[in-house]
């Protein structure tokens, strides 16, 4: 690999990172918007049974943004981290079900 090539490559990567950074800013804006929506819905007079699922979904999407964009889980080389993390999410889900649903008295 010649000198030239590497600098080219570096430039290429710089460029890519820049684009990515743009994406991340967009993600950020979306997260802010979602948060505002969630707060607004709670402040409104909508029915709780309607609002709760929606704000939970909004939260889940936000978390997806964090994981995939901010924490780069969309990048290559994150297969195992993703596997293990979702293992945790699976167990986490069971814990929450157990405590929120099975302790009903």
């Amino acid at each position, binding site marked *: 690999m010649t000198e030239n090539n590497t600098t080219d490559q570096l430039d290429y990567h710089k460029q890519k990172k820049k684009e990515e950074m743009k994406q991340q800013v967009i993600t950020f804006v979306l997260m802010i918007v979602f948060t505002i929506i969630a707060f607004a819905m709670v402040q409104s007079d909508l029915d709780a049974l309607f609002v709760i699922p929606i704000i939970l979904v909004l939260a889940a999407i936000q978390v997806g943004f964090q994981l995939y964009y901010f924490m780069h889980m969309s990048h290559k080389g994150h297969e*195992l981290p993703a596997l*293990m993390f979702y*293992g*945790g999410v*699976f*167990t986490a889900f*069971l*814990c929450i079900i*157990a*405590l929120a649903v*099975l*302790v009903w*008295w």
Partner: protein
Amino acid sequence: MSTMVANQKGFGAKIWDYLTTVDHKKIAILYLVAGGFFFLIGGLEALAIRWQLVEPMNDFVSSGFYNELITMHGTTMIFLAAMPLIFAFMNAVVPLQIGARDVAFPFLNSLGFWLFLFGGIMLNVGWFTGGAADAGWTAYAPLSTTSPGEGVDYYVLGLQISGAGTLIGGINFLVTIVNMRAPGMTYMRMPLFTWTAFVASALILFAFPALTVGLFLMMFDRLFDSGFFDPSMGGNSVIWQHLFWIFGHPEVYILVLPAFGIFSEIFSTFSKKRLFGYTAMVFATVLIAFFGFMVWAHHMFTVGLGPAANSIFAVATMAIAVPTGIKIFNWLFTLWGGSITINTPMLWGLGFIPTFTVGGFTGVMLAAAAADFQYHDTYFVVAHFHYVIVGGVVFGLIAGTHYWWPKMFGKVLNDKLGKVTFWLFFTGFHLTFFIQHFLGLMGMPRRYWVYLEDQGLNLGNMISTIGALLMGVGTIVLLYNIVVTSIKGEKVSGDPWDGRTLEWAIPSPPPHYNFKQTPLVRGLDPLWVEKSEGRKGITPAEPLDDIHMPNGSILPFIMSLGLFIAGFGFIYQKYDLSWLIVLFIGMGITLGAMLTRSLKDDLGHHIHKEDLEKEEAGE
């Protein structure tokens, strides 16, 4: 050679060496010694339990002391004997089996050990301060939260500290196996012990946090007057049960899967065949782990969760029989058509199959919720879990001890004595626990300090106690064997069993860099592959070069010591707030050590190529 150097050093230097070591093989020895010690303690407690129950209305120990005995027996055996002994073999063997020079986090590995040890000591401190924990190893609230004295506090803090160690150890092995495999060692070429270590570590990662939280809540309730489990404050004691069993059930598979791995190695080695159905074995291991998370409420059938929950959990639990059965049959067919040598490790393996099968069967019977209303909290359950834990885990650990002893210490344990141990222990075991199934069905609940006369329970209990004594004698023979072998045993080659996996390709005990040159793995059972092609050693994957090794450090010891000290502060501040000083000192020591660690670059050292060459020439 490094061992030579160690021999020349004085005793103090040797101790210092072990206090600061980050070498996974030495950490393995530390785990083996500490775990073995706690096994003896736990066994002694078991003998006291059995002695109390030898006759009806016995008064060998008081009820309070009996409750401490069972609690500490269960806790010690599970957390301080079985787990560390498993870690001992994982440390001794996994890096070798995957052709690695080291684990991923040598420093954390050592930290994990010291946390476990100090946690274990903490748990036992209660004995000397007016009473150890006495609420059962499951520590159900509110019995545990209202138990007077500090016994349960020691349980909570001891488990918290050693649990942190276990979690760290688990992550270390996960990353080691993911990142440190030698070239060619694909996932589907990993020996089964490595696979089970991997899966067990994943279980640790996901199961222990639930225990951590449970212990925190219990600590807050006991020491800081919160109300999680206190009905009078709106709390709910069933939360503890869920948290404990969300951890607790996976825990039993954390224990048994590595034991399965050990047996897989042994069966394959001593029948001179590759493991039958390797892929299915791997798949079954993963499946057991996965199901293992969805069955915890089978410990809670009588809590009153309702028929829907009970049915779901009953069926989910039964499902585990399928992958476990796959394993049993694959082992049998590994033996099928083989050339079977029956020596001590193999004998334990052969003892394991029927024993564990019976234990598994009683497990499935317990899983039938409607029938569990009868079995639950009786000696039937005690019989079940000793069949799977002793018959599976302890047999596995003893088998592993005999199998890998030459690798760890360079000497083979005496086979005759080994067989004596086996027959004593095996007979004693079945005497002790088979009869307990019937005791349970006949109306003997567990955790009973005494049982009444004229209830038809006398003979069974007496037989059970006799069996326990036999196990004790068997254990003593094992200890004797270890002593005799250490003194008189002959040195053996690196490969005394005609092994199949990488650990047998290097000298026993291995040099501290394990592999001079990273091996090239060309198939399942890599050493066997080479042997069958007529080669003696393994093909290297790289030219001889400098080897990078981590430096030893005393910091893990200090960090753990700090937490140990802080533990006392946590406990005694409930009587007198000036103990908070101790808490702060302890935490200060730990945080200080952590800060030192992160501020001081530790880049390790190199073993130079020239030295390696010299060594080779010297041999």
